[in-house]
């Protein structure tokens, strides 16, 4: 089986700071049908069709982060589908987006599309075509359409003071996958991380949507720090207890061995001055900035509901952790202890 060259995943994402500035100057069409759009840094656009139905539109694609094309297809698709779940929606349909070098063996592309199609099917969505171009490097993803009741949209900027922070997958997958490509991480650790990456956030959302969660996003390229920053939207601060933080032990060990990614450093540059590290632990700092490909859902939950939600998630084998709280705005946006 021919293999892919590794160069990306969510690590390839354009830095958050650069993107925000660039978008500010673009024309915006205001419509009362647009329920979630450019104004917030949310995961998807949501457009109201009727009082009981809205559609969620999102697109996500990136360069390869693993060498196995079938696995890459599954991870890229799980990542793209995740934005619909992060809005509280259900997947309706998806279209492939493909860039593929002209001289490469088409059987590789077939494997990628096979992986993607299986994930869309698992999500209960209709995969109905797509668009492919020739390019120098392989890229794959999906444009996804989902549905949601307008009253049940989960935004990323609606948390309340006192809410707990819950994350449904362990952090550290970029350190592991990139460290594995560099020969510094074991295959067992790599498999653990990629198993997590190809797991649909559908299963976590199917539980979460039964609880009165106040906000939700998925942790992807900007890392935990970046996506939490969006969640706090300049109004709140957060406290993170690193003893409860979910992460792969191998990623922590890898960071200490200096498997330092470009995406992680970009996130650090953007957010470092907003964070008060009360712990002196370089490995944990790197985990908090590590870009996630197909990361977990980050939700804020009223304290009274935390215990039952956590129990429900764990009973359904979702490795969720309750690791922090939303507090009134402080000098530093995120305190890590």
């Amino acid at each position, binding site marked *: 089986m021919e293999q892919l060259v590794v160069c990306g995943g969510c690590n390839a994402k354009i830095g958050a700071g650069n993107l925000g500035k660039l978008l500010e100057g673009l024309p915006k069409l205001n419509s009362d049908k647009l329920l979630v759009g450019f104004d917030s840094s949310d995961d998807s656009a949501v457009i109201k069709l009727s009082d009981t139905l809205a559609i969620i539109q999102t697109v996500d694609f990136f360069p390869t982060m693993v060498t196995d094309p079938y696995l890459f297809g599954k991870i890229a698709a799980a990542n793209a589908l995740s934005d619909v779940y992060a809005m509280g929606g259900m997947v309706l349909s998806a279209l492939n987006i493909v860039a593929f070098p002209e001289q490469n063996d088409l059987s590789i592309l077939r494997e990628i599309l096979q992986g993607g199609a299986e994930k869309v099917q698992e999500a209960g969505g209709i995969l109905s075509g797509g668009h492919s171009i020739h390019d120098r490097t392989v890229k794959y993803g999906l444009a996804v359409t989902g549905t949601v009741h307008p009253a049940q949209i989960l935004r990323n900027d609606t948390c309340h003071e006192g809410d707990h922070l819950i994350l449904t997958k362990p952090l550290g997958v970029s350190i592991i996958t990139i*460290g594995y490509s560099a020969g510094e991480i074991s295959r067992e650790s790599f498999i653990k991380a990629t198993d997590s990456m190809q797991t649909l956030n559908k299963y976590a959302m199917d539980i979460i949507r039964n609880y009165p969660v106040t906000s939700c996003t998925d942790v992807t390229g900007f890392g935990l720090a970046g996506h939490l920053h969006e969640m706090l939207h300049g109004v709140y601060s957060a406290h993170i207890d690193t003893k409860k933080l979910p992460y792969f032990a191998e990623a922590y060990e890898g960071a200490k*061995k*200096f*498997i*330092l*990614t*470009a995406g992680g*450093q970009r996130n650090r540059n953007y957010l470092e001055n907003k964070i008060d590290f009360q712990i002196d632990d*370089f490995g944990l700092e790197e985990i908090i900035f590590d870009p996630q490909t197909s990361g977990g859902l980050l939700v804020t939950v009223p304290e009274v509901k935390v215990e039952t939600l956590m129990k429900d998630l764990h009973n359904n084998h979702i490795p969720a952790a309750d690791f922090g709280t939303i507090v009134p705005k402080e000098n530093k946006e995120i305190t890590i202890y």
Partner: protein
Amino acid sequence: MFKVDALGKACPLPVIETRKALKEHDTVTTLVDNKIATQNLEKMAKQLGYVYQMQEDSPTHYTVVITKGAVEPEQTVETEQTVNAGHKADDEYIVVINSDKMGIGEEKLGKNLMKTFIYTLTEQDVLPQRIIFYNGGVPIVTEGSESLADLKNLAAKGVEIYACGACLNFYGLTAKVAVGEITNMYRIVEMMRSAYRIVKP
């Protein structure tokens, strides 16, 4: 000064390669083509307590120089016998024995010390890669040597043992070699030149 050319290489490779080079060299110059890579090198240097210097030659060419600080514990492991490094683990070493006596002084004591030295090698956490015997050292690998059992023990654990062929010939001991391999000056020079560290009793 050792140089790592990481131009065109994506993170974390510039950091990993520089980290490896720093295990063998006190100062490493790394060339990278993007600023993010320099920041990652800076993070590593800071964590290790090393001195970091960076020069932006152009937006796609940066020269980073990392030097081990005086207080850095790893540096004390380095010894003056460190010869040309290549790419070796930092606990690798070879042993060179050029006499049947250890140190200068009373002959009987010298011979006892040498016997104890070779026995003590067998007890080390990290065994030498190879032991080279020449000149007055070659009798130790021949019949009647009190260290034969220890040397055979080391050989069984994978330690390569070599004796200088010209020396054995000179002393008339060629037929009596009881452990290891006979070698020549070319190989001896090559093994010594490429060793990470040479231990001489």
